[in-house]
């Protein structure tokens, strides 16, 4: 199965986001590299607003991800509640 | 179609020989001798005798290769247009049919000091 990934800057803002992604995607593998964190998942990865808010302790607009996003891979689908990356095979 | 365009489109070749003030470009390279990272470019009058190119500018450029000292031009195999070619050192570039931007290659089978493993 093809890998999808999302890479975020390693900073204070992204720590709870990365935790939330790990909670929602038990199959994801988190790679910590200098100044960045790359999260790989087989086939599909979901980022959920509610889980981020629970980790962050405040309201969160998923589009805020744009600020700390480094790169991603896979077809993107986004609405208010989720950002999904997937490959069709 | 020579280019995808709205209407007919004709380009102008930039490196035509008339832009070189009576000289021409010749490319030379020594097969399996990659100390020289790319084929060498010389700009010379077409009337230059081929032997003079070998003894003069080419010999100066090749000096850095450990095989250069033992290079015997009488034993070298030549290619032009990637085909076997027998140049006459007493004739000029033009006399040997070596045109503008032609690539000449030469081979020295058995001499490959910097390619010990090959």
């Amino acid at each position, binding site marked *: 199965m*093809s*890998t999808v*990934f999302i*890479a975020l*800057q390693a900073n204070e803002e992204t720590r709870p986001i990365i935790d939330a992604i790990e909670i929602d995607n038990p199959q994801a593998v988190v790679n910590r590299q*200098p100044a*960045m964190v*790359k999260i790989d998942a087989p086939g599909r990865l979901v980022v959920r607003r509610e889980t981020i808010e629970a980790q962050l302790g405040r309201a969160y607009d998923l*589009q805020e991800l*744009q*600020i700390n*996003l*480094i*790169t991603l*891979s896979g*077809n993107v689908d*986004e*609405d208010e509640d989720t950002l999904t990356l997937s490959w*069709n*095979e | *179609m*020579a*280019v*995808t365009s*709205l209407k007919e489109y004709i*380009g*102008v*070749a930039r*490196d*035509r020989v008339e*832009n*070189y*003030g009576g*000289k021409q*470009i010749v*490319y*030379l*390279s020594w097969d*399996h001798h*990659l*100390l*020289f*990272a*790319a*084929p*060498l*470019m010389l*700009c010379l009058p077409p009337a230059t005798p081929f032997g003079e190119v070998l003894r003069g500018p080419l010999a100066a*450029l090749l000096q*850095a290769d450990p095989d250069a000292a033992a290079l015997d031009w009488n034993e070298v195999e030549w290619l032009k*247009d*990637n085909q076997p070619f027998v140049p006459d050192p007493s004739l000029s570039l033009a006399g040997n049919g070596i045109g*503008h*931007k032609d*690539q000449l290659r030469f081979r020295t089978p058995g001499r*490959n000091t*910097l*390619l010990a*493993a*090959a």
Partner: protein
Amino acid sequence: MDMKATKKKLGMKERYRILTRDLGWEPGYQSKKAIFPYVEYEGIKVHDWDKWEDPFRLTMDAYWKYQAEKERKFYAIIDAHAQNNGHLNLTDARYLSALKIFLQAISPGEYAAHKGFARIGREFPGVGTQVACQMQAIDEIRHAQTQIHAMSNYNRYYDGFHAFADARDRIWYTSVARSFFDDAMSAGPFEFMIAIGFSFEYVLTNLLFVPFMSGAAYNGDMATVTFGFSAQSDEARHMTLGLECIKFMLEQDPDNLPIVQGWIDKWFWRGFRVLGLVSTMMDYMLPKRVMSWREAWEIYGVENGGALFRDLARYGIRPPKGWDDAEQAIDHMSHQFMLGLYQWSFGTAFHSWIPSDDDMAWLSAKYPDTFDRYYRPRWAHIKKLKAAGTPFKNYGLARLCQCCQLPCVFTEPGDPTLTCHRETVYKGEKYQFCSDGCKDIFEHEPEKYIQAWLPMPALFSELGGDVAAWMDWVSLRDGADNGDYDGSRDQRHFDEWRGLATSNL
């Protein structure tokens, strides 16, 4: 009937529809053809522009908000860098060669991309596409500006930064990147989108920005990490635009498939060549290395590119034609480039050097099948020449490829001991190439590439072969900007200033 309570907030999809689709209107007194004259001649058929949608659904108001936030973060760090001797926190000043290449060749590419997206944002009829292209045009000019601004801090202390604009226009190696963007910009809007939006951004840009910027962090270059990641945060949107546009073209009409495939073949190869120098930056120019070019290729080329083309297979797309040749070149290209850069360093506005014994041990571990066999013997000989007081300088200028404009440093597929020779004759003129990929591109559109301004031949046609006059013309200061790092002013200054910064003498 009760008044319906107004919805407090529009949903993302609704907001996106209002702020994009509602910007489009049917023209009254001009035909669509007159307004969008470039949208048909490439042969791409589009039946319904509304089918194209930005999956991030980013609207202009949100765009400005987030971009402003990125700029604030960027300048906070740039200020900190300038205030805290950031120029001395590098692992080693050799690292700066990578930055000089970036500034001379890549930042101007960002500006070219800006011009291109501004143009195609006007040329595409679809409103969603127009908005996304407009955002990308603004992003790209921001990237050019923030990169130049960040690197200007180094210009106060080191050589090779002072005349990047002259280098961009005139020095030989920058013509590679320049011709790449000129090629894309002189194509139609759809080809431009495949060239930059898809092949460059989606397939290749990760190789440039991600491991390289991570490498900048590793080497203590806070300024570059910052502009790199600030630019890269836009890149996810650009990549998504590129991928969505290609899917859109393929879904609109089956006749589009062969045209799109031809562009993927062409632009993968052109992109692979233009980004080739990144291999050298990663394997040789970072004093402290995060991963090898080979390792980066495994992640971002093989794994990610493989996933992408498996996904697009449902439309009939196959991997680019040059993919296998590229795969073969991965274990060779960084060495081939660095050997070239070293022997031509009299003509570069950055330094190169002979790798140390430690560097060579690392290279041989990372390239077990190629480095010791093919490249170590050449470095060893070059080292010997230097020790003997006759450092190797190759004054035989290089044959350049008529298409990618790189020196023909590449070897024959299947034989790493032999230079790849390819040539063709068009209208009585002979043209030389570095590879089958570049020759194929030329032969498809020869009228375009016969016009190439090749810097090496131009040294003879325009300056009569006078290298000193050429150096003046490109603003290269002989003995300062160029040559071996060992013994350079950059090396001397860095060691001296770092000593001052860490002691009280």
